[in-house]
Every structure is written in structure tokens, then in C-alpha cells.
């Protein structure tokens, strides 16, 4: 998962190590450097699983190794941009955190003890309908030749279910990095195709003045005609000037064509560790929440008669009591007496199909599981 960082430093080790001095001009000049980009070129992986078009030269053959593809993109400066395409998606925030730690660890091994590290810019946004988290770092290392300065930039994105992570270890080339990674994300096509949800919205999340997270909400229809409502959130929270905390979460609801909840799950990972793993299921006429919360087992029954709402119905305009089940249903209208949610219709658990379990964890849990297995 973290091939990029190791590759980047092993190739362009000396480049960011500029003699540190109180010289704002050299630093300003170094940070203002940009490449003259070439006309976009199409490329594809060796197995033809994906293709894209970028304004940079692709170095070498792109092969699938350990569930991902690594790409080296030469944009005309000494240090290439390294990217990773992950077919099953990534936990955007944790990918950045883990890769940053690996990059700095590698810097320490190759360049010398990292004396200081600092987050320069943290940002979140979209390229079209592709959410991204980006961050740039500066660090100093103590070498035999004195104190040297290094820098690197990272960006993580999910295009549908495909994760994209890129990093560049060098001072400057900020617009170059953005142009190349944006082109990769926008033009990426896979043989799997990207199934478009029938509804999607993306929001940025800011803490104070810093955009540091993204929230993606999608509504898709599954093979049974039920709606899967998914809300994913990825956030990077500065823990201090020199580190970040990652938080990735996913909430899923399976909703029948009448807008009734079938079941749901909520998973949160913080710094790669699973902190919340809860499922909501109807059983014997009651709704039950089960799972783990902060390392402790949880099992709770909702009050008899409680009716959890679902994410796929909205109030009909101009009416307080009539609700419209949106395109996840057949546009029926019905009265609502429950105040349990903004959009659900009252429904007794007993009338729901029991134990229609569709709770697959998605990338958050998969990555966390993988992280734990590998001891990351």
C-alpha cells in the first residue's frame, strides 16, 4: 500500500536536500519552481486494466503488484511524481498519514536524522466529482554536511471505487504536481467501468479556516432493486505542527424500495485503528445495535416501536406531513408520524425482511484489517 513513498525517496534522494540557510530568496525560488509540461500522453497498465492521459512521461511498465499499480511520472524535473492506483479504493486520510510517516522514516534512513517536520499546507476539495485530500510538508535533516531541507507533497483521491495516491519529494512544483495528478484522476478509466450512483454529493469539511476533510454521499441501486446509501468521510486533523491524525469513516444503509431501512453499519478508523464498528439490524420485532465501540463490545436494543429512518426519502415541498420517497422508490407518498429521522417512514422492524445482511465493510474496514495484519 505504501510503495510510493519508498520509491520516491530511493530515486530522488539528493534533490530536496538543499543547503539550509537563512536565505529567503533561495527558498522562495526553490518553492516557485515549475515544470514545462508536455502535451498529455495516453498510457495503460500492462494488463490493460486501466488507462489514463497525463502531461508527463510514464517511466517503465505498469504492473499490478500487491493489489495496486505503481506509476512513475517524469515531468521534466529531477524528481519524478510517484503514484499508486488501488483497484478497491483507499482510506484517503490514513493513506496520507501512513505514507508521510514512511517517507520521513525513509528520509531518516537515507539522509540523516529528521530534526524538524512541518505541515505547510493542508487542503481538501474536488476535481470534478473526484474528492481529494492534499498536504505538503517540509522537513530538515541533519547530515554530515550540515542541516538540509527537504519537502514533499501528497494527494489522495477516490474515483468511484478506485483509489489514487500520488507523492512528489521535492521543493516547489506545486502547480505541476496538481496538474499531473488532476489529469491522472480525471482521465483514469478502468475495464471494470465506473458505476455511477444515481445520486452523489461531495462536501468539504473545515476545522477553523483549514479544509481538511471530505464527505461523500452516494445512493446506488443494488441487484435486488434496493438502495445502498453510503456516506464516507476522510479527515486529516493536525495533531501539532508536525503530525496529523487520520480519520476515515463509512456509514451504509440498505433501504428497500418503500424507503424502509433493511439494515445499516457504521465504521470509523482513526490512525488506522478500528474505533467503531457497529451494525443495526432488526431482530424479533426490535432494532438492535451490535458491534464494537472504542474497543468495547456493544449490544443495545432500541426502544420498542422505534423506527430508524433511512436516507432516501425527503419531505414533499410545501407539506409537513407528507413525504416523498425519492428515486430510490417508486415515488409513493405517505404520511409520516416518526420523528426519528429526517426522511424515514415509520416501519416496524417486524415488517422488515429479517437478517437481510448486506453489511460488507468497504475500503475502510478492509484497509484497517490489512493494516492490522501487517502490523502497520
Amino acid at each position, binding site marked *: 500500500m505504501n510503495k510510493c513513498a519508498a520509491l520516491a525517496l530511493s530515486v530522488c534522494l539528493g534533490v530536496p536536500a538543499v543547503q539550509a540557510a537563512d536565505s529567503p530568496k533561495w527558498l522562495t525560488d526553490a518553492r516557485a519552481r515549475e515544470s514545462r509540461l508536455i502535451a498529455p500522453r495516453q498510457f495503460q497498465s500492462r494488463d490493460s486494466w486501466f488507462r489514463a492521459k497525463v502531461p508527463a512521461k510514464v517511466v517503465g511498465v505498469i504492473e499490478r503488484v500487491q493489489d495496486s499499480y505503481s506509476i512513475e511520472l517524469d515531468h521534466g524535473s529531477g524528481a519524478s511524481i510517484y503514484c499508486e492506483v488501488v483497484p478497491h479504493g483507499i482510506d484517503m486520510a490514513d493513506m496520507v498519514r501512513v505514507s508521510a510517516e514512511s517517507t520521513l522514516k525513509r528520509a531518516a534512513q537515507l539522509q540523516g536524522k529528521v530534526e524538524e517536520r512541518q505541515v505547510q499546507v493542508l487542503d481538501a476539495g474536488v476535481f470534478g466529482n473526484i474528492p481529494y485530500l492534499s498536504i505538503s510538508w517540509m522537513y530538515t535533516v541533519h547530515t554530515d554536511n550540515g542541516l538540509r531541507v527537504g519537502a514533499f507533497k501528497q494527494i489522495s483521491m477516490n474515483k468511484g471505487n478506485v483509489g489514487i495516491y500520488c507523492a512528489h519529494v521535492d521543493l516547489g512544483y506545486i502547480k505541476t504536481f496538481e496538474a499531473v495528478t488532476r489529469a491522472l484522476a480525471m482521465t483514469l478509466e478502468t475495464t471494470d467501468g465506473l458505476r455511477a450512483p444515481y445520486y452523489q454529493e*461531495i*462536501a468539504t469539511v*473545515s*476545522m477553523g479556516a483549514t479544509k481538511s476533510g471530505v464527505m461523500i454521499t452516494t*445512493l446506488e441501486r443494488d441487484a435486488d432493486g434496493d438502495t445502498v446509501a453510503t456516506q464516507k468521510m476522510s479527515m486529516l486533523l493536525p495533531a501539532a505542527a508536525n503530525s496529523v491524525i487520520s480519520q476515515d469513516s463509512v456509514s451504509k444503509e440498505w433501504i428497500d424500495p418503500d424507503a424502509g431501512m433493511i439494515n445499516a453499519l457504521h465504521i470509523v478508523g482513526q490512525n488506522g485503528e478500528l474505533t467503531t464498528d457497529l451494525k443495526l439490524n432488526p431482530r424479533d420485532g426490535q432494532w438492535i445495535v451490535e458491534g464494537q465501540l472504542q474497543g468495547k463490545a456493544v449490544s443495545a436494543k432500541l426502544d420498542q416501536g422505534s423506527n430508524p429512518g433511512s436516507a432516501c426519502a425527503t419531505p414533499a415541498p410545501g407539506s409537513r406531513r407528507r413525504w416523498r420517497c425519492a428515486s430510490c422508490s417508486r415515488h409513493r407518498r405517505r404520511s409520516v408520524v416518526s420523528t426519528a429521522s429526517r426522511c424515514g417512514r415509520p416501519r416496524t422492524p417486524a415488517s422488515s425482511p429479517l437478517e437481510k445482511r448486506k453489511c460488507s465493510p468497504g475500503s475502510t474496514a478492509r484497509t484497517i484489517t490489512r493494516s492490522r495484519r501487517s502490523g502497520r
Partner: protein
Amino acid sequence: MLARIDGTHYHALSKIGTLSADVTLDSTSGMASAAEIRMGPQKMKLERVYVSGAF
């Protein structure tokens, strides 16, 4: 619902447990296009930047 902002947006206050949020509702989708949640001394702000499809 607190006030109408314009033809398609409403200002509302949303409360879930101990959390309360200032919300801007978009009447086209029925969803929040912006929200501001006070969390102790911090404010968390959500701002919709992309939307597609019918809801």
C-alpha cells in the same frame, strides 16, 4: 426552520443529541448544502462542492 434565504435555500437549526448545527437546506434536493457545527471552541464547517443526480 428559521428563515428563508432565497428561492431555494432555507436556514435551519439541526439538533442531534448534544450537537447543534446551523444548516443551509437546499429545497431542490432536500439536503444540506452547508452546515456549521460548534464543537467546543472549534467550528466544523461542511460545504457542498459537488452534486449530481436526482434525489
